[in-house]
């Protein structure tokens, strides 16, 4: 592989990895506080992309549409928590998981019924789709913007987690929810904030996805969501930095393996699954994770 192709794949991988990373952060934060695999998270990403699409179709400028998509997804995320997860906080874990899969299936089919299952073309404004041509490398500007924005967002999330009162509460919640309640912290409000942050990031990931593969459909969240979860486990579930690392590793792997062994192209969607199996076999805590179960005892 010569240098140009290598660099080309490198930027592509960074862009793909960013999307996984953004969605993985939501998984990892919700898992951290509730020990729940939020199956609906991938679908929240789809909801964000659809809100953006319709806001834009209604004639709003792209930036406003993006904002509406993010806020809309955050609201949907908070609502799923309030309606479906909150009443089951004390129920057996399996009930919570079944409800989560129910919400996921509900969102997918609701959007199919409302907007049809055919993919819709998603057109980004020109300044995001412009293509630079440097030394034989094709650089759509989005490929630069997506990883940059992702790293900025990561910095903001880490700042919230480690420098603010809310962040401290979130980290405490991940450690022991009962004790946190005894300290006079409104746990439900903190969980709401976690869902809002996670869903907003998922929406940003969904919008990036829509810009890169310029189409959206109601089932787009399933596979991406699965991969992002695998990325979160790879990085260490419960760790925000780990989710980003896992996302980038997965993104680079997918791009480079397909570039080097084109005959494996059909299995692209399976790599995440093998990562997941390997991590569970050899290092269940992931790259940066701590043993959450041990922390509670």
């Amino acid at each position, binding site marked *: 592989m010569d240098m140009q192709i290598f660099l080309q794949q490198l930027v592509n991988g960074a862009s793909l990895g960013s999307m996984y990373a953004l969605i993985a952060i939501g998984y990892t934060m919700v898992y951290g506080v509730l*020990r*729940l*695999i939020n*199956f609906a998270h991938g679908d929240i990403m789809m909801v964000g992309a659809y809100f953006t699409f319709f806001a834009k179709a209604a004639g709003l400028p792209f930036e406003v549409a993006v904002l509406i998509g993010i806020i809309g997804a955050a609201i949907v995320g908070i609502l799923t928590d309030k309606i*479906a997860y909150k*009443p*089951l906080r004390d*129920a*057996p*874990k*399996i*009930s919570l*998981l*079944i*409800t989560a*899969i*129910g*919400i996921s*299936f*509900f969102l997918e*089919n*609701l959007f*199919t*019924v409302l907007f049809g*299952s055919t993919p819709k073309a998603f057109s980004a404004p020109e300044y995001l789709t412009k293509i630079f041509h440097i030394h034989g490398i094709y650089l759509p500007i989005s490929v630069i913007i997506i990883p940059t924005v992702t790293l900025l967002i990561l910095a903001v999330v880490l700042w919230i987690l480690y420098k603010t009162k809310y962040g401290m509460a979130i980290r405490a919640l991940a450690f022991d929810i009962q004790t946190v309640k005894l300290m006079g912290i409104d746990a439900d409000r903190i969980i709401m904030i976690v869902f809002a942050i996670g869903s907003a990031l998922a929406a940003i990931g969904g919008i990036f996805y829509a810009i890169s593969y310029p189409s959206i459909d109601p089932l787009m969240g*399933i*596979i991406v969501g*699965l991969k992002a*979860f*695998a990325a979160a*486990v790879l990085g260490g*579930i419960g760790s925000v930095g780990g989710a980003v690392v896992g996302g980038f590793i997965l993104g680079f792997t997918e791009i480079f393996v397909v570039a080097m062994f084109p005959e494996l192209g*059909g*299995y692209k*969607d*399976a790599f*995440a*699954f093998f990562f*997941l*199996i*390997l991590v*569970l*076999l050899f290092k*269940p805590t992931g790259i940066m994770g701590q043993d959450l*179960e041990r922390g509670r005892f």
Partner: protein
Amino acid sequence: MNKFIRNIILIAIVIYFIYYAQKHFDSYTLSILDNIGIFAILALSYNLINGIAGQFSLEPNGFVAIGAYFTAILLIPTDTKLDMFALVDPAPIILQMKAHFLPAILIGGVAASFVALLLSFPVFRVRGDYLAIVTLGFGFIIRIFAINNPAYTNGAMGLNDIPEEANFLWIGILCVITFLVMIHVIYSKFGRAMKSVRDDEDAASAMGINTFKMKTYAFMTSAFFEGVGGGLLASMLTTITPDQFSFLLTFQLLIIIVLGGLGSMSGALIATILVMGGMEWLRFLDDDIKIFGMDLGAHPGMRMVVFAILLIVMMLFARRGLLGDRELTEFFKKKSK
């Protein structure tokens, strides 16, 4: 002894009914009964891992696919295989694989069970709910493999002309066997150990129960019967494609076992009939809907929205389902002190 004779008589009556139905019912009624029978097998086995062992799993579609493909390949005659594989020539092993009906579906079950064993090592060694996400992913991966290995599975076109050997006699009797095996398991020491893992894993392992082993047993038993069910499904439908084994199948089964009550085998049987009937009855939702002369158009997927809401509402307000985690017979027993 009394009870034993009663059970034998009950089973004899059920088997006579199955035999009578196969002989005298018309083909439409039989096709509905076939469907219910296969879904009952799947729901009963799915209930073992979810309801009895308490491990949330989303595996049925993957294991049903494995069972269906193995059975199909074993049943289709060699000449038909040579004609059917259009993209690439079938692999030699595919041409050599051949078996009669009963061995074929059993091999399908064993294959599914073996895959379950492989999956259980990464999944059950660690605490947490990884089983759900790994099995969900597995359902997608199996489809990717089927599409990308046309020499073995004929790719996206799938397999057709599978000999139609499954009739209601086979399906019904296998359904009875599945039910008896499940009842036998849950009232055995394995069943009690599985329930203890479900209720409190720490306490169970403190009592000396090997929780990894119990979860793996439950998972493999589930997988075996799901593979058998898949084999029956393949032989009943006579064609299979990778897209047929989507998550929808798993979702229907999840609704069934939640409605029947997680952990209740008789509940699963009753719920299978209710849900399969409901699926047919609610079919109008997917068609054109006209309200006050207004044509709202066809909404494919509307049924699934209704079922998803049903599942969520059940989880929120009626988590125990129809029978909770008890069997039908346990309701008639006097409470012992």
